[in-house]
Structure formats: C-alpha cells, structure tokens
C-alpha cells in the first residue's frame, strides 16, 4: 500500500498561546504561561505586553527592557534565526534571569533550535526552564531533551500523553550532548567483541 499525502490541516497560527498542558521534567502538567507573538503591524517597541505570566519575543525584551525588567513572571522566546549569544549579558551574572526561556520551532524540520538550546545550556550556562514551543511533536522530543530542553509545549492538536512516550524512545546514546556530558566510550566499558562465524 502506498500512503499518499493528505491535505494538511495545520492550525492557521500555531496555538502555543493558552496551552493548557505541557510536558515538564518528564510529566504532563498544567501550564498558564502565554506566548506573545507579534501580530502583523506590531513592533517590538510598540507592542503592549499584557500583565501575567507571559513569554515575550527576544526582540520585545530587548526593546522594552526598562519596562519589563521588574516583572517577576516573565519569559523570553527565541525565534529559530536568533542566536543565544543575544542573552549573553543577562546570563553573565544570573544563570536563570527569566522564569522560562523558550525556543520556537516554526516547523519541526527546522533544526536551528537544537543548537540554540545546546549553546544556551552549555556555553551560556542557563539553568532555568527551557521550553520548546511551536511545531513540537512526539518524534522530536528525544532529541530536544538531549540538547537541553526540559519543557515541551506539544502542538495543541496532538495528544500530549502520547507525545510523552517520545522521551523514552532510546535508552542509550553514543555521543555527548547536554543530557550526557560524556560520550558512551567514557561512560561504559566497551570491549572488542570477538565473534567468529
């Protein structure tokens, strides 16, 4: 049987706002953060940031820093074409300057977010919640977890309990990343297998 492409029913705007449930630290939990996305015509300088638990675009944080700085409940999210070094100063003296940092996956096949996450953790020392938002699906969660994400706002049309299974697809891995600081050859005693057929 051949499976032909079916019409894609992607939501018009990826519904990361008002996500009721997310995966955090390997369990499904309720969540009341809102991701602020700029609508057409809105600018980072001009957009009004609502009160409450809100994750703002990096550019909004940079443009409205003076006003936002005092907020207790604030998160910042990276677009996939932004570099983690943009938060270098914030992270210099505080390993968790925001309650959450999110990285957006505009499409799940856009892999830039993996390097952003890795460098936020490994290079810049971020220790707080690192959340994947956008086109976040079960079959990428294992890799996302490896590079440093600990929270996943799974796309709203997918079953989040099903997606949770993606975190345990593999029980071993060869190479180092954020989750395993040592590659397999430094962790395990691997002996040369001698097999004669």
């Amino acid at each position: 049987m051949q499976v032909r492409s079916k019409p894609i029913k992607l939501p018009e705007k990826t519904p990361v706002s008002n996500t009721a449930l997310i995966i955090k630290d390997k369990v499904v939990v309720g969540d009341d953060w809102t991701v602020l996305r700029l609508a057409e015509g809105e600018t980072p300088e001009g957009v009004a940031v609502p009160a409450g638990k809100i994750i703002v675009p990096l550019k909004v944080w940079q443009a409205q820093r003076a006003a936002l700085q005092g907020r207790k409940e604030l998160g910042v999210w990276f677009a996939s074409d932004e570099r983690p070094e943009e938060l270098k100063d914030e992270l210099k003296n505080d390993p968790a300057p925001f309650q959450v940092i999110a990285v957006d996956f505009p499409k799940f096949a856009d892999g830039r977010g993996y390097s952003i996450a890795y460098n936020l953790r490994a290079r810049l020392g971020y220790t707080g919640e690192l959340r994947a938002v956008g086109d976040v699906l079960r079959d990428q969660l294992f890799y996302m977890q490896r590079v440093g994400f600990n929270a996943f706002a799974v796309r709203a049309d997918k079953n989040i309990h099903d997606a949770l299974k993606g975190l345990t697809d593999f029980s071993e891995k060869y190479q180092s990343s954020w989750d395993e600081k040592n590659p397999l050859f430094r962790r395990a005693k691997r002996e040369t297998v001698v097999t004669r057929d």
Partner: protein
Amino acid sequence: MYRYDQYDHLIVKERVAQYRDQVRRRLSDELIEDEFRILRLQNGLYLQRHAYMLRIAVPYGLLASRQVRMFAHIARKYDRGYGHFTTRQNIQFNWIKLEESPDILAELATVEMHAIQTSGNCIRNTTSDELAGVAADEIVDPRPYAELIREWSTFHPEFAYLPRKFKIAISGSEQDRAATAVHDIGLHVIKNDAGEVGFRVLVGGGMGRTPILGSQIRDFLPWKHAMSYLEAILRVYNQYGRRDNIYKARIKILVKAIGPEEFARQVEEEWQHIKDGPSTLTEEELQRVANYFTEPAYETLPATDAEYERLKAEDKGFANWIKRNVKQHKVPGYAAAILSLKKTGVPPGDITADQLDFVADLADRYSFSELRVTHEQNLVLADVKQSELYALWKEAKAHGLATPNIGLLTDIICCPGGDFCSLANAKSIPIAQAIAERFDNIDFQHDIGDIELNISGCINACGHHHVGNIGILGVDKDGAEWYQVSLGGAQGNTSSIGKIIGPSFSAHQMPTVIDRLLQVYVKQRIEDERFIDTVRRIGITPFKDFVYASPIKTDQVTGEDACV
C-alpha cells in the same frame, strides 16, 4: 570488520521499535504524510514512482557474507528478486511495501545492519576507500575513524534536522578513491612529520546544481579532536546554512558565500569552546575500534605465483580481467579483485538475489568472508590469493560478474533515473545500456583505456556526472527527455568539474555523441595518454566542434523522441 556490542544492538533494536510505531501511527492516520515523510526519510524509505524504495546503510562500504545473504533474502521475500548498489556504497531495494518495512529492519538488525540516516537532512552514511586496509598506497587505515564517525553521527541529537543532507567521506591513501573533494566534509587521514596521525579537512564540496570542489580548512587536525571538530563544523552549518531555498541549503553554498577562510574562522571559534572536552577521543577508544580492523590470517606467500603467471600469459580473457579488475595488495601473494556489476544489458549496480548469494559464497571461499562496495557501484573481494584468482575468475564469469571493464567506458556510474526515481527529469539506465551495447567490444574498450562515464537523471547528480570525464545529465525540455554532455570532470587527487559542451541531445543521439567524442580522442591522443589528459591538454573545443559538425541522425524516432 566491526561487530556490534550490546550497545549497538540495543540502539538498533530500539530504532526498529521506534520506526515500527511510526509506521503504525501513519497507517492509523495519527501521523499525516507531511509529518511521516521526514521520519521515514531518516530511515531511508523513499516513495518513488511505483513503490517505496528502502536504502540500507553499508557503513563505509564494508560487508560480511552473512549480511550479503540477508540482502538476497530481502530481495526474494520483500522485493522483486534484486537490489541496487549505490554511489554511497549502500544498497537499495525498489519494490518495498510500507507495512513490511519494519519487518525488514528487524531482519537486518539480526545481521547488525540498519537504514538509519540513509536519507533526510542529516549526517548520511560515511563513505570510504574500498581498498581500505589492503591498498598498497595506504598511509593510515581509515576504517576505525569511519566507524568512530558512524557512532558519533548516529542519532546525533543536534544535527538531525540540518538545512540539507550532509555527507562525509574519508580516505587514508596516496590516491583518493573516496571522492573526498565532492563531499560536504572530506577527510584525509595523514601523518605529520612527527609520525602522528591526523586529518586534512576539506569542507564544502558537492555536486548537484552547484558543483564545487571542497576547500581545505585545516591541514592537520590531530585524530583525538576529530569529533569535537566535526561538531563545530556541523554547529556552524546548522545555525547559518540557508533554509529558505533547498537548492542553496548545502554547506558548500555557505562556505562559498562567506569564503573558506571566514568559515574556517567561525569553526575555529566554535571549536575553542568544546576542544579538549569529553568528546576528545582516547587511545583506548581508538584501540577498541581498531581491534576490529586487524589483518586477517594472511599466509606467507611468494610475491608472484608461477602458475598464475602462466595462465595470465595463455588466456587473454583472464589477462584482460587481471589488467582491469584486479588491484595491487599490500601483502605479497594477495590481490583485490573487483566484481563488475556493469555487464552490458544490466542496469549499473543492479544485482540479483542469486548473484548476492553467489558473491557471499565467493567471499567465504576466497576472501575471509568479507566484501566491499565501491562508490562506482561494483563489489570488491579484497583479500584473494593470487594463486586462486584464476578459479575465482572462472566462477565469477559463469555468473556474469567478471566483465573486464573496471575503469573503462562501460563501467558507467548511473543513478536509477526516471525508471524509478520520482525526482528524475529523464531516464538514465536506458542511456547507459544503449552506450554499453554500442561499445560492447572489449578490445575497443581496452584500447580506449581509462575513462569515466557518469550519468545522472537530474541535477541532484546521484550519478556523479559533474566528475565524469564524460558526464551526461538528463534534462527536461517541454516534457521531453534530453541529455546535456559535459567533458573534463574527474574524481580523485586531481578532481575537476566537467564543462558543458553545448546544446543537449535526444536519447537516440547519445551513443553517436559518445562515438564522436572518442574519435576525437583517438585522433588526438599522444601515446598512452588517458582520455582525461587529452581533454585537459587540448581543451573541450576540438571535441565540441566535431560533435556538432554535422547533424546526428537517429535511426528510429520512438517513445520520448517522438514527442516534440
């Protein structure tokens, strides 16, 4: 050769389970095709014109006879009785059912094989020299490093969704037989003046729409740093490679855009953060892997065998085969024998289930149960006793695997083309067959000598047409299939990209086009000059002038040619 330990087995087993569940979710519509496509591609499953194609990884081209028998079994049970070896030293099967693909992977796992990352925008199967470990001109055996790269790149979490596919080739000999210059990363294993092993690193080579030879970004990288340095290259590419245009997404475009010096600088900067970290290879780890590639139990033999010399002198067919298909071995009394998969009338690289079983037997009886796949789509028995070459030749000949044409006109590199591939603009196999039939005379081929004729059915260049001495590219013009010809491409130590000679030709004109090119060569060559050397000496103009001097009539105008 490398054998799985409990970790390799575990990872591959878990992959089969993961993939089986992905197929289940696709069949139950939990996954839509646009989501599933990318997942199945990372497992080598393509949807082609007629059915699914499954590409199985042959790490750096090395096979054990039991693995080859598994291919025969898969060909019979799940396909139509044959398989196809590719230019990435892999094998693919063209008539696969989606529902059965997880079972095929489960069967492959029993012989320590998989289809991981044989497609998709990830790090593909690392290719290497088919004569690794036996070549007389070898500096360092590249196989342990190729295996270390295989493990490092398998399910690398950060580099599974790159801007585009990513191919690494590694060579450790004087002669580059791994086409390293046309890879995203080309590695040459070398020794420095102090005798230490390291890599010369090329980056940004590639074919496709924009053929470019790789640029050297490091002349000596100590081997211990291989993984962290590769990681740095990939991290720069993952972040800065273009994602807005599929044709400009390969690393070669990034390297070209910012220049090799700037790219090298960015890699260096990235590398400084991870250099000497836990990814640094250890002597123990290299030794663990190198232990799998120790020499087999060679006998002490005289450098030449009298009986072999006698047979070579008496039997012209045998002598022809020795001349073209047998390569020098580093151990006295041994040779590497190439089994040609380029018999006229058979699509290049194709092999039947019976032939697969047969070559597995040959490997068991003549070559320590191992085989290698070449990126020219032939098979190698790397450790044959000189005294047994005659018997091997007789047997191989009886099974259509001893065409004495390695490196000759009919040893054509050819992609599956429009007969199978949904990307193709034009068929490639019938062109290869028509040319092979026209020049089937082996004496003529031996007279022409070394020549590389490469055919791709589309600009993706799976048939390596850019680096063919003669390159043929299938193009689509108003719905009809046409063929563009280039001259002067080459692989190896003096790699070059071919130049297009002029307007394209119809399928039926192609054998005559080749004939005219060869006529110019025969007329112009000086003594033993190879085709490529004549092209380099006199340029493409004399060839071009002669090919287009008079119209090429076609005897029969049928099929695609009848379309206007």
